[in-house]
């Protein structure tokens, strides 16, 4: 929330002064009643700093640590001004705790707009000459600031005509971090209903990719089926990830292992009705499976036990899981909610590893395409999608690698 907005200016005789502020008295006391939120005498050297620090985004916290002032001091050099320069700053006062990144654009935009307007038609210096109320044809700066503050706080954006020619358009954009790189073996799962928001103006590649996201297909397959190059499909999916509209999972195989994570305790305790949510997500056909059984199924995953084995074990106990629940959905639910993690399979060749450590050899150009995967840093999903092979085919091919017996180890993590 913007707690205050101000227009400060350097006067050759009086020094730095606040010319306009909203709400009144937030930076300097205006009516002598309420004390201002910050001490202008302390902060003025950062609001109107030395020229070396002007024309850049400058922020300073207040000594009590409650507020931060965000400003962009601007110097315009021109012989027409007294002392040949005009120095001003449009700044914001926000709580120190709030995320300041969205406001940086606002401050930059105000500085750029008013600097340009001052250069073109002396908007700022003229309004001063005519007194605080302006000439009547233009909005006084203080009311302008008031509108900016109110609109940004209430609607997150503002569109304000300043004079006949200029309009200030600003919007607060939340700051998202860059999403991780998308890999060919990731499986995107939609978090939003794309059909409701997609429209024909969207990027065509993105539209093609979105149409193929079904929660089962991996990125490589999506690219293939959408007739889009793999790199473009990855960019498109990363874009969706940036806006938090999808999640990335692993490829589901009945031969893979899943193991419990600490989140499984929340499942057992049915925190926030997670088990009921699971039941409605995974039940198919006849009856809803009881919470107790779902918990028991979920808790039966363990490292070293594949999904297939997990099904067999339950079959022996008299539960034909397939007829109760959708197993893929059940596993995915566990992974999404942090109850389970996928145990990945890796292959490593000791010979290759040793040669990497000593730096003797790099992967041979004409060597076996599988060799580069045997440093233990590439999981089986990657090998399979990149080489277009099945698990069994990969294992067969590894046997034909020209390495000593027992050189290849397979481990899981």
């Amino acid at each position: 929330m913007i707690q205050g907005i101000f227009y400060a200016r350097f006067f050759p005789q009086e020094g730095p002064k606040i010319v306009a502020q909203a709400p009144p008295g937030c930076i300097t006391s205006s009516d002598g009643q309420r004390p201002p939120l910050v001490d202008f005498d302390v902060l003025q050297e950062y609001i109107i700093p030395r020229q070396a620090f002007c024309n850049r985004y400058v922020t300073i916290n207040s000594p009590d640590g409650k507020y931060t002032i965000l400003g962009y001091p601007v110097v315009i050099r021109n012989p027409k001004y007294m002392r040949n320069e005009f120095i001003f700053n449009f700044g914001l006062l926000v709580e120190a705790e709030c995320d300041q990144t969205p406001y940086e654009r606002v401050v930059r935009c105000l500085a750029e707009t008013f600097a340009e307007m001052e250069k073109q038609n002396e908007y700022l210096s003229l309004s001063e000459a005519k007194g605080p109320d302006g000439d009547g044809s233009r909005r006084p700066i203080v009311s302008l600031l008031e509108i900016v503050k109110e609109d940004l706080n209430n609607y997150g954006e503002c569109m304000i005509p300043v004079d006949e020619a200029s309009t200030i358009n600003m919007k607060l954009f939340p700051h998202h971090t860059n999403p991780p790189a998308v890999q060919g073996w990731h499986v995107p799962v939609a978090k939003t209903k794309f059909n409701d928001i997609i429209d024909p103006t969207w990027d065509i590649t993105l539209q093609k990719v979105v149409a193929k996201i079904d929660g089962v297909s991996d990125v490589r397959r999506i690219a293939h089926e959408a007739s889009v190059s793999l790199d473009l499909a990855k960019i498109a999916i990363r874009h969706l990830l940036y806006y938090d509209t999808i999640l990335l999972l692993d490829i589901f195989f009945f031969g893979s292992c899943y193991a419990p994570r600490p989140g499984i305790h929340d499942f057992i305790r049915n925190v926030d009705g997670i088990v009921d949510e699971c039941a409605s997500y995974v039940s198919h056909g006849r009856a809803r499976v009881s919470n107790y059984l779902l918990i028991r199924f979920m808790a039966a995953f363990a490292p070293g036990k594949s999904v297939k084995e997990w099904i067999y074990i339950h079959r022996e106990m008299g539960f034909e899981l397939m007829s109760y629940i959708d197993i893929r959905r059940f596993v995915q639910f566990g992974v999404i909610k942090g109850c389970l993690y996928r145990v990945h399979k890796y292959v490593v060749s000791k010979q290759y590893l040793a040669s990497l450590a000593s730096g003797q050899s790099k992967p041979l150009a004409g060597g076996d395409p599988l060799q580069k995967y045997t440093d233990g840093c590439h999981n089986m999903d990657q090998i399979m999608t990149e080489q277009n092979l099945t698990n069994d085919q990969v294992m067969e091919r590894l046997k034909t690698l020209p390495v000593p017996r027992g050189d290849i180890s397979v481990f899981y993590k």
Partner: protein
Amino acid sequence: MSCVNDENFVAVALVINRSRDGPAFVFHYPSHVSALSNLADKAKDVDAEDVLFERLSQSSGAEPAPEPSENRGAIRDDHYVTESGSQVVPWEHVAGFPARDLAGILTPARSYHKKLFQLSLDPLLCVSYPIHVPENGKWKKPKKASKAKAAKDLDEGIAPDEPNPPVRVTKAEPSKEKAKEGKKDETEEEKRSSMTMFNLVFFLNPKKHETRELVDSLYSNIVKKVNKAYQYSQQHSEFVWKESKRILAAKDRAREEKKKMSALWKELTQNSSLAASMREIYDAVSQNRIATLHLDTVDGILTPSVQIPVPLFVADLPPEDDERHRGLWLTTANAFLSQDALEEPGFLDRNFALLLTDDEKKIVAELGNDRDPTASSMAEFARLSKPTMSFYQVGQSNTLTLDQVRKYAQHFIFWRRAMAIPPLHPRDIYMVSPNCDLERLSQDAQDWQTAFPLAPPLPTFLAELSVMPRPYKFITPSKAHRPLYLRMLAWLMRGGWVTQLCTFAYVVVWPEILYEVDYEIEAEELGVATSSVDGTDTTSIHTAQSTLDGQSTHSSLTSPPPQLPSQQQPQQSQTQAQAQPNMPNPSTTSAAEHSAEMARLERIAMKAHRELADKATAHARKVAPVATTNPSLNEAPHLAGLTPHIIVDPKKATGKESRYLSAIARRFKDEEHRSAWQLMCKYFDGRCALERIALQEDMKRKKTWTLVTILRP
């Protein structure tokens, strides 16, 4: 591991303010700090808006920000003269700003004294903790208070969370103090008029999303503590001011001599312990090491140490792209500790052991160099502690007390020489950690081979551990190999390659027990009801009848008021109403109300009676509970509608749940098993690993497991 690195930590600088000469930029390290480019940030801004747009904007080139012209790009090492004839001194520009201007803006007003000062001069972010001279203008504190206060200052300043403060003041020459006394008068004036504040500023260039975290960890762990240490040295021996004067004088000379910056910096860091301490701060903190400062003051050498504590473990799998936590030990041993457990005396001692992160001999040798008397018992501790022995067990030895063990363990862990892990045991299951860092595999495989030349190669061993996780002793070829294999396990643990696979339990109450308890409760309720037939219950029935009489004869006034207090109210108001006819309530309404009320109560009583009777009949018709030997397999028809119940926390079980627990206890025929159940069921809360019960209860592992297996149906 930590978020601070040499990319986002640009430099450290000391700025002072003087009452006569104004601010001065004393020293900065590293020497060559070029202007940070704004462009990267701008591009980032664009990509925040649109990932696809990124490429486009990069190819067209973002508009360069207005920048003070003369000093773009790299800093030169030598002096040169501009066309206008002025000499450009290489150290007079730092990070693209004139040092003079920086000195001005980085000497904030007194209101920032000992507070966070965070100034961003995009893209440079300055963080500091300015220290001002006390109001009276003298740095030195009055003699009396100084000692206690200063000691306190130092304590809280440098190591609040650390058992023994690492600062040791070695009194060099007490005579110096006396020598100074004589000169006191003449220096008095000097002291009052000299340095008014100093400020050790950290220059950062963080990425947008990491700003807050970076500032927080650096400020609380480093910035504050170093400035406080400097304050201490200034209060006691004018250290900062004296060194600053020397550095500034050396810079002035070098300016005249046109000395190269690198040469001057080398000279300063060799001759001034203040400059050297700043170098150490930058080098250590940007590499995430522990910074050990040597402040060579006239009163002796001060050696404070500062660091940003590193995380030693993660409690849950970090996301795939989180590189900072990759390779850390993955464990819930700490995260699952409840407040109760932490408060329980001896809990931590029994559940944790010390795992040295470095070679034992090396650590012992390091301690051997220290003449401090505690160092030798610390070395003893390092020798005695084994990752298989809990602190409690180490404390049982005659050489060290448990208190010492705790203190030293904390000390070792804080200074990154050790970590606390649940004691390693061959019966426990260890598997390849899902958080291990595979990038390190090739290097670690070599180190492993050097450390254990006869052991199977690391990849083979990891494969062995991961394929089918099982107790570690089954991986050990023979009993004779066990010590070696435990050492190997400790090695793997240290590198974050393995983690313990723990078992957690919850109590499941089977329908048979549920039914039994419900049946009992019902019977008890009925029992209470029937046994009190002569008491309250009959009276209520009786009353109901009497009111019925009263109503039918219309002699409402005379009918004895029923015992229920609620009924006495209308009765009274009625009499009053009759005595005072002018009251607005006509008596007829009261009479009607009364009879209606009577009727209502009567209906309620009848209903309750009928329900009770129905219940009794229903209960009588119910199948009496039968205790089978294996309740989980009981599929009797009367249990069909019940689903098993999970008790989340047996320690806090109340009401029905506690009855379930005692019902289960009754099923154990064997006295020993029953008492084992009473003892252990508190651990079946899903948070306490079953592997820890033996440690907690001081029992043999084997016995514990046998009992746990029996308790499991």
